[in-house]
C-alpha cells in the first residue's frame, strides 16, 4: 500500500468542501471572515461562492434606521437577537453619519432604495439632482459618491430614480429619470453619466405618484405609475417595458386613495401592496410575469381599523412580511405578518438610539455581492467604531 502515513491535520481540504461549507454561512459572517487570512479571503471573494451561496443560504434581511440630530443624520444597524421572538437590537454606535450639504435636513425619508446589499439615499426631498444621491455599502462601511452630470442636460431635476445591477457586466447602475425628458444612467466604475433613450412608454409616468421608489428584482428596475401600470427597465438592455397590475377587486385611482399603492422588494421579487381601504392589506407578488396573491388581511388585531399600514419588505424566506403601522393610541410600530399562521406580531426593539422612530426603518436583503468591493467614482470609508464590527 502506498499511503501508509496517516493524513496530516495540516493538509488542506479540497476546495469543493470549503466552498460548500462557506455557502452555508450568512453574509454577515462571511464579511467578517474575509479578514481571517488571505486564503479565506480568496475563497469568499470567488464568484463561484456567490453562485452556490444564493441557492443555499436563506438570506436574512437587514434593518437599518436613520436618526437625526440635524444637521447630520446617523444610520444605525440592527441585529436580530432571536428571529422567532422578533427581538431586534440596535447597535449603539451608528455605522454612518451623513452631514447635510445644504446645512439642514428638512425631512426624514432619506433612504430611497437598495440593490444587492447596497443602499442609496438622497440629500434632498422631492425632485433630485444626481449629485444629491449617494450610495452606502453598510457591510464594508463604504460610501460612494456619484459623479456630477451638469453638462449633459438643461433640466436639472429628476422625479424617478433607482439602483440596479447588470449581471451581464457585473456592474451596479444608478438610473435617474425625468418623465418625457431624459433618462440617465451611471455605471459604477465609470466616471460619468450616460443618456438612455426614452420611448413612448415613459411619457405615461405620472407625476402624481407620491412614492417614487424603485424596486430592483429579476434584473430590472420597476416603478409604479399612476394609471395602474408598472414601468420596467431592463438593466442589461436598458430598455423600458410595461407591466399590468394585478386585477384587484376594486381599483380606485391612486389620486383618491388614503393609502397609496406601493411596490416593495420581497426578497428579490416585486411585491405590489394594495390597500383598498384603511385597515385592509393585500400583497401580490410578481412571479414570471404573472401576479399571485401573497397574503391579505383586514382588521387584524392588534391593529385597529384605522391603522395605516406600510409594508417594508420581506422578513424571511417563509414569506413573512415586515410592516410598520401607526394606531391612534401609539406611534409607529413594526409588525411581522406571517401568511402561514395568519398571525400578526409586534417586533420589539431593544437599546434604541435616542430620537429614534420606527417610522424610518428600512429593510433590505443583504447580498454577498456587496462584500466583494465595488468600483466606484469615489469611495470613502464611513465611521467605524470599536463596538460595531460589521453589520
Amino acid at each position: 500500500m502506498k499511503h501508509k502515513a496517516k493524513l496530516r491535520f495540516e493538509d488542506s481540504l479540497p476546495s469543493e468542501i470549503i466552498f460548500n461549507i462557506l455557502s452555508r454561512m450568512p453574509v454577515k459572517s462571511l464579511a467578517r471572515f474575509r479578514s481571517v487570512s488571505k486564503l479565506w479571503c480568496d475563497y469568499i471573494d470567488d464568484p463561484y461562492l456567490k453562485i452556490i451561496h444564493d441557492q443555499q443560504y436563506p438570506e436574512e434581511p437587514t434593518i437599518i434606521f436613520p436618526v437625526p440630530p440635524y444637521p447630520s443624520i446617523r444610520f444605525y444597524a440592527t441585529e436580530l437577537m432571536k428571529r422567532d421572538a422578533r427581538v431586534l437590537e440596535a447597535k449603539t454606535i451608528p455605522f454612518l453619519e451623513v452631514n447635510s450639504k445644504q446645512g439642514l435636513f428638512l425631512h426624514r425619508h432619506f433612504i430611497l432604495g437598495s440593490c444587492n446589499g447596497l443602499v442609496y439615499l438622497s440629500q434632498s426631498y422631492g425632485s433630485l439632482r444626481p449629485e444629491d444621491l449617494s450610495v452606502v455599502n453598510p457591510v464594508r462601511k463604504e460610501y460612494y459618491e456619484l459623479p456630477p452630470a451638469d453638462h449633459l442636460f438643461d433640466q436639472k431635476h429628476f422625479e424617478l430614480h433607482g439602483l440596479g445591477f447588470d449581471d451581464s457586466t457585473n456592474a451596479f447602475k444608478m438610473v435617474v429619470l425625468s418623465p418625457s425628458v431624459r433618462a440617465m444612467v451611471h455605471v459604477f466604475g465609470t466616471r460619468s453619466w450616460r443618456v438612455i433613450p426614452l420611448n413612448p412608454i415613459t411619457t405615461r409616468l405620472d407625476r402624481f405618484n407620491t412614492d417614487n421608489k424603485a424596486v430592483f428584482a429579476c434584473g430590472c428596475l420597476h416603478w409604479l405609475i399612476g394609471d395602474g401600470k408598472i414601468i420596467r427597465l431592463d438593466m442589461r438592455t436598458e430598455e423600458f417595458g410595461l407591466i399590468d397590475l394585478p386585477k384587484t377587486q376594486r381599483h380606485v385611482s391612486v389620486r383618491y386613495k388614503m393609502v397609496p399603492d406601493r411596490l416593495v422588494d420581497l426578497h428579490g421579487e416585486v411585491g405590489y401592496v394594495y390597500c383598498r381601504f384603511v385597515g385592509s392589506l393585500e400583497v401580490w407578488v410578481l412571479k414570471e410575469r404573472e401576479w399571485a396573491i401573497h397574503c391579505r388581511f383586514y382588521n387584524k388585531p392588534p391593529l385597529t381599523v384605522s391603522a395605516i399600514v406600510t409594508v417594508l419588505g420581506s422578513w424571511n424566506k417563509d414569506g413573512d412580511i415586515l410592516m410598520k403601522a401607526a394606531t391612534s393610541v401609539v406611534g409607529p410600530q413594526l409588525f411581522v405578518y406571517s401568511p402561514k399562521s395568519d398571525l400578526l406580531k409586534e417586533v420589539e426593539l431593544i437599546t434604541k438610539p435616542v430620537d429614534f422612530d420606527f417610522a424610518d426603518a428600512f429593510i433590505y436583503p443583504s447580498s454577498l455581492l456587496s462584500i466583494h468591493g465595488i468600483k466606484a467614482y469615489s469611495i470613502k470609508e464611513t465611521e467605524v467604531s470599536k463596538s460595531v464590527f460589521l453589520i
Partner: protein
Amino acid sequence: MSFSKTIMLRNYDGETFVVDEVVAVEPQTIEHMIEDGCANTSIPLPNITSKILSKVIEHCKKHVETPNSNEKDAKADLKSFDFDFVKADQGTLFDLILAVNYLNIKGLLDLIYQTIADMIKGKTPEEEEEMRRVNAWVFSCFVGVTCLYFKSKKI
C-alpha cells in the same frame, strides 16, 4: 434460504468489511463501482481508515434500516442519531469529511457540512481566534497574520 447479497470493502489498513449490498450502495461512489462491475472481489478504498469506514457504514446502515415513514418517532430517532454522530472530535470530523466526500453520500455530506458551518458562523472575533487556533486544520495550513485579530485590536 437465500442470503442477501453482500459486498466486501477493503480499506488501506488491509481490513475487510462485509456489508449488505443495500447498505453499500448508499455511497454513490460504491454504487457506480458496482454498476461498472468492479466489485467482483472486493472494493478497494485505499484512503479511508477502519475507524472512519466503520462509522460511515454505521450511518448508512442506520439510514437504510429506518423505515422511510413519516412517523414522528422514526424521524426523531434518526435526528438524534445524526446529532450524536457528529459529536466527534475534530480529527474524526476531518477524516470523516474527506471520506464522505470521496464516497459521495449526499445525506451524510449535508449533515457534516452543516455541522461545521454551524460551528463557525456567528462567532465573535475572540471566539473565532480561539476556534481557529484549535482547528487550524479546518481551512488551511497557510500561516498568516491574523488580520481579524489585529483589526479588532487596532480600532
